[in-house]
C-alpha cells in the first residue's frame, strides 16, 4: 500500500476534489475513518479548501477534529499530477505543532505537570527509602570505627564514612527539592531570637572554617533581637550559602554580615544576610544559571566541589516562600557575595507576650530557679552538647561532657555527678547499653534519656535499660525544669523573689527566661543612675574591646588578658554573666600567654558583646 505513511497524512483527490483514498495517519489527525471519508469532497475534511489553486504549494489550513471538535492547524502540501488525461491531486497533511491525538496545549501542559508531580513523588519516596538503609550503614560504620582496626582499615572506614555523609546531604537536598516543587514547604512566622539564630550558625561553622585555614568574620549592625520568621528555614539558607562559600574558598576569609535595609520602592524594611568570600568568583555569564536547578558553573567545578547543584535553587525557592529574594555579586578571582533578604517583621510586644505566657505555663517561677547540680551530659553530636550545656549553665549547673556511651561509663565511674543526661543513639556504646552499665555500679543516680523518638516503645526501652525518665528532642530550656524538680529537688537554690517581681514586663521577661545576655536586676540596683551607668559601661567596654583587639593584632597575650580583666569586671557589674565568663577565659589565657586560645574566645566575646549592647540599648528605650 503506497498510501500508508506513518508521519504524514496523505489524501488523493480526483480532478473534482473527491477523496479517492487516504492513509491511516489522516484518521489520526482528523478523527475520521477512511471508510467515511472516501467519496466525500475534500471540503468535508478541510472547509474552504481550494484544491485547484496552484500558486501556493504549501499552505496552512484548519481542520475540525471529529471527536473533540477542536480546530487543528495543519500544513497542507498540494501537488497536481497528470497521468495522460487523468488528473490526480495529492495532499500531504502534517500537524503544525506535534499534538498527538489532537490534544490542545492546555491538556498537554496538564499531562506534563502530572508527570512532574509523579517524578517528585517518586524522588521523595526513593529518598526516604534510600535514607533508611543509609542511616543503618553510617551508624554501623561508626560502630566499626570503635573496634580494633589496623591503620589501613581505619582509613578505609573513614572514607566510607565521609562518603556516606556526603550521600546523606545529597539525599536531603533532593528530598527538599521535590517537596518545594510539590509546594509542600511553607514558611512559618513566629517570634524568633535573631541573635540566638546567628549565634548557632556561627558556632556551627567556626571550627570547619578555621580548620580550612580561613578567617570567619561576623558583622552586624543594629539589628533587632526578636523578629517574626521561620528560624529553621532562615538557618537552612544561610548554612547552605556559607557551605558553598566554604567549598569554593581556599584562602582568605568568609564573612557573614547581617543588616537591615530599606526598600526604596515601598519604604519597607528588610533583613539582609550577606555571605562574602574571597574564593574563585563566578563569571558574569554564569551568574544567571546559578539559581536554576541542576546547574553548577562548569564540569570542573563539579569535579572540584561536588554536590547536586540543587542547593542554590532550593535556597531561592525558600527565600521566595518567605517573601524574600536571593542574589549574588561576584568577580572572578576576587570572590563572591551571596545575599538573601526577607521582609523584616519585628516581634511586637504582643508576640513576645504570647511566648512569655507559654513559658509561664511551665510552672510559674520554676524557670527562675537555679540548681546547684553537677551533671554528666552524654551526646555524640557536638552541637547538641553545646545547646544542652548552655541550657544547663543557665540553670546554674556545672556540666561535664562525654561523646559516647563508653566515655560516659568511665566518667560516671570516676566522677561524682548528681544526674546524667543520656542521648540514646550513639556510636561505640549507645545510651541504653551505657545506662545498663552505669546501673551495675551506681543504682541511684538519675539517668534521663534525651531522645528524638517519642514513641511509647522507645520510652519503655529507656526505662527497661535503667534510665529514670526522658526528655524528647529537640530539647528546649523548659523541658529541664520539671526534670530537675522531680529528680534533684534537694539541689535547688531559691531564686531572688525581688528579681521575679521586677521583671514582669516584656521583652525582659522573655529575655530573663530565655537567653538574656544579662540579669536586669543588676541594672535596677542603680535606680536613677542606670542610664548613666549604661552609657559609661558601653563607652568603657568599647575602649577595652578596642584595646583587646589591638593587643591581639600585636600578638600580645598578656595585655589582652589585662584588658579582659577589666572588661570582665564591668560586665559582671551589670549582671552580664556570660560575657564576663568569656572575658575571664581571655584573662586566664592571657596570664598563661596562650595566644591561640585568646583569638578563639575573642570571637565569642565580640558576638556576645553585640548581644549585651543590643540589650542595653533596648533597655534604655524601654525606660
Amino acid at each position, binding site marked *: 500500500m503506497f498510501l500508508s505513511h506513518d508521519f504524514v497524512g496523505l489524501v488523493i483527490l480526483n480532478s473534482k476534489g473527491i477523496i479517492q483514498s487516504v492513509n491511516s495517519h489522516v484518521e489520526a489527525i482528523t478523527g475520521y475513518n477512511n471508510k467515511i471519508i472516501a467519496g466525500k469532497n475534500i471540503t468535508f475534511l478541510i472547509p474552504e479548501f481550494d484544491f485547484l489553486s496552484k500558486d501556493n504549494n504549501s499552505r496552512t489550513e484548519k481542520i475540525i477534529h471529529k471527536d473533540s471538535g477542536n480546530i487543528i492547524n495543519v500544513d497542507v502540501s498540494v501537488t497536481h499530477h497528470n497521468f495522460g488525461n487523468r488528473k490526480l491531486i495529492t495532499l500531504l497533511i502534517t500537524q503544525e505543532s506535534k499534538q498527538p491525538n489532537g490534544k490542545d496545549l492546555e491538556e498537554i501542559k496538564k499531562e506534563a505537570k502530572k508527570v512532574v508531580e509523579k517524578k517528585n513523588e517518586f524522588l521523595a519516596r526513593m529518598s526516604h527509602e534510600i535514607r533508611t538503609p543509609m542511616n543503618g550503614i553510617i551508624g554501623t560504620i561508626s560502630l566499626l570505627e570503635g573496634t580494633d582496626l589496623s591503620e589501613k582499615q581505619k582509613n578505609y572506614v573513614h572514607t566510607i564514612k565521609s562518603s556516606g555523609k556526603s550521600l546523606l546531604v545529597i539525599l536531603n537536598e533532593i528530598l527538599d527539592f521535590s517537596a518545594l516543587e510539590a509546594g509542600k514547604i511553607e514558611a512559618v512566622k513566629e517570634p524568633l531570637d535573631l541573635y540566638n539564630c546567628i549565634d548557632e550558625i556561627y558556632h556551627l561553622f567556626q571550627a570547619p572554617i578555621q580548620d580550612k585555614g580561613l578567617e570567619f568574620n561576623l558583622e552586624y549592625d543594629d539589628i533587632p533581637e526578636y523578629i517574626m520568621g521561620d528560624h529553621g528555614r532562615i538557618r537552612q539558607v544561610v548554612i547552605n550559602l556559607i557551605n558553598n562559600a566554604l567549598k569554593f574558598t581556599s584562602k582568605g576569609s568568609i564573612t557573614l554580615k547581617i543588616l537591615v535595609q530599606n526598600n526604596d520602592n515601598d519604604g519597607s524594611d528588610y533583613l539582609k544576610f550577606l555571605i562574602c568570600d574571597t574564593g574563585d568568583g563566578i563569571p558574569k555569564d554564569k551568574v544567571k544559571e546559578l539559581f536554576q536547578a541542576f546547574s553548577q558553573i562548569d564540569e570542573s567545578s563539579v569535579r572540584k566541589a561536588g554536590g547536586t547543584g540543587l542547593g542554590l535553587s532550593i535556597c531561592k525557592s525558600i527565600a521566595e516562600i518567605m517573601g524574600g529574594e536571593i542574589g549574588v555579586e561576584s568577580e572572578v578571582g576576587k570572590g563572591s557575595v551571596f545575599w538573601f533578604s526577607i521582609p523584616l517583621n519585628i516581634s511586637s510586644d504582643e508576640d513576645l507576650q504570647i511566648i512569655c505566657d507559654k513559658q509561664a505555663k511551665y510552672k510559674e517561677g520554676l524557670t527562675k530557679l537555679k540548681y546547684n547540680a553537677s551533671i554528666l551530659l552524654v551526646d555524640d553530636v557536638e552541637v547538641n552538647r553545646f545547646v544542652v550545656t548552655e541550657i544547663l549553665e543557665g540553670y546554674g549547673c556545672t556540666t561535664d561532657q562525654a561523646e559516647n556511651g563508653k566515655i560516659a561509663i568511665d566518667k560516671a565511674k570516676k566522677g561524682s555527678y548528681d544526674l546524667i543526661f543520656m542521648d540514646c543513639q550513639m556510636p561505640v556504646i549507645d545510651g541504653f547499653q551505657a545506662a545498663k552499665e552505669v546501673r551495675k555500679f551506681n543504682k541511684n543516680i538519675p539517668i534521663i534519656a534525651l531522645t528524638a523518638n517519642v514513641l511509647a516503645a522507645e520510652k519503655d526501652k529507656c526505662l527497661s535499660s535503667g534510665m529514670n525518665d526522658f526528655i524528647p528532642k529537640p530539647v528546649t530550656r523548659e523541658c529541664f525544669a520539671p526534670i530537675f524538680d522531680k529528680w534533684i529537688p534537694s539541689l535547688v537554690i531559691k531564686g531572688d523573689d525581688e528579681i521575679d517581681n521586677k521583671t514582669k514586663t516584656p521583652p525582659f521577661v522573655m529575655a530573663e527566661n530565655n537567653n538574656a545576655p544579662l540579669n536586669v536586676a*543588676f541594672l535596677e*540596683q*542603680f*535606680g536613677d*543612675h542606670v542610664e*548613666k*551607668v549604661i552609657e*559609661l*559601661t558601653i*563607652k*568603657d567596654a568599647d575602649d*577595652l574591646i578596642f584595646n583587646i583587639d589591638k593587643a591581639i593584632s600585636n600578638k600580645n597575650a598578656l595585655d589582652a588578658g*589585662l584588658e579582659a*580583666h*577589666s572588661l*570582665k*569586671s*564591668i560586665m*559582671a*557589674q*551589670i*549582671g552580664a554573666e556570660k560575657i564576663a565568663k568569656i572575658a*575571664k577565659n581571655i584573662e586566664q589565657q592571657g596570664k598563661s600567654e596562650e595566644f591561640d586560645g585568646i583569638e578563639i574566645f575573642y570571637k565569642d566575646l565580640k558576638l556576645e558583646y553585640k548581644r549585651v549592647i543590643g540589650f542595653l540599648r533596648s533597655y534604655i528605650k524601654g525606660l
Partner: protein
Amino acid sequence: MATCLVVDDVTVSLFTARAFLEDLGIDVKQASDGETALATLDEGGIDVVLLDWHLKKKSGLELLEVIRDKHGSDMKVIVFSGVEDSTKADDAIIAGADGYMTKPTTKEKLEHELKSVGIL
C-alpha cells in the same frame, strides 16, 4: 559626713561605686590611678579608701603599702576585686587592708564593709 576615695582605673566602676556611696550618705572623691590617689590623700580629708586590687599602672598591693607607710593604720582601706580572686582576700588583709569586698559592687556589700570598718 565621711569622705571616701575610690581608686579604680575603669570609669564606669568609679561611677557605680560613687552612686552607691552617695546613696549611703558618703562624700566621694575619685582617682583613676595610684599617683592621683596618693596626691588626693595628701590633700587630706579622706576617711576611707576603696581600692581596686587590679590597677594597671601601680598595683593595688603597691598602693596599699605606700598608704600604710605614709598614713599609718588610721586610714581605713577596703580592697575590692573580682569574684574569683577571693583567695586574694587573704593577701589583701595580710598586706594591711581593713576590709575586702568582691566585685560586682552592690550597695549592701559596701554598707556592710563600711560598717565593719566603723565608717557607718
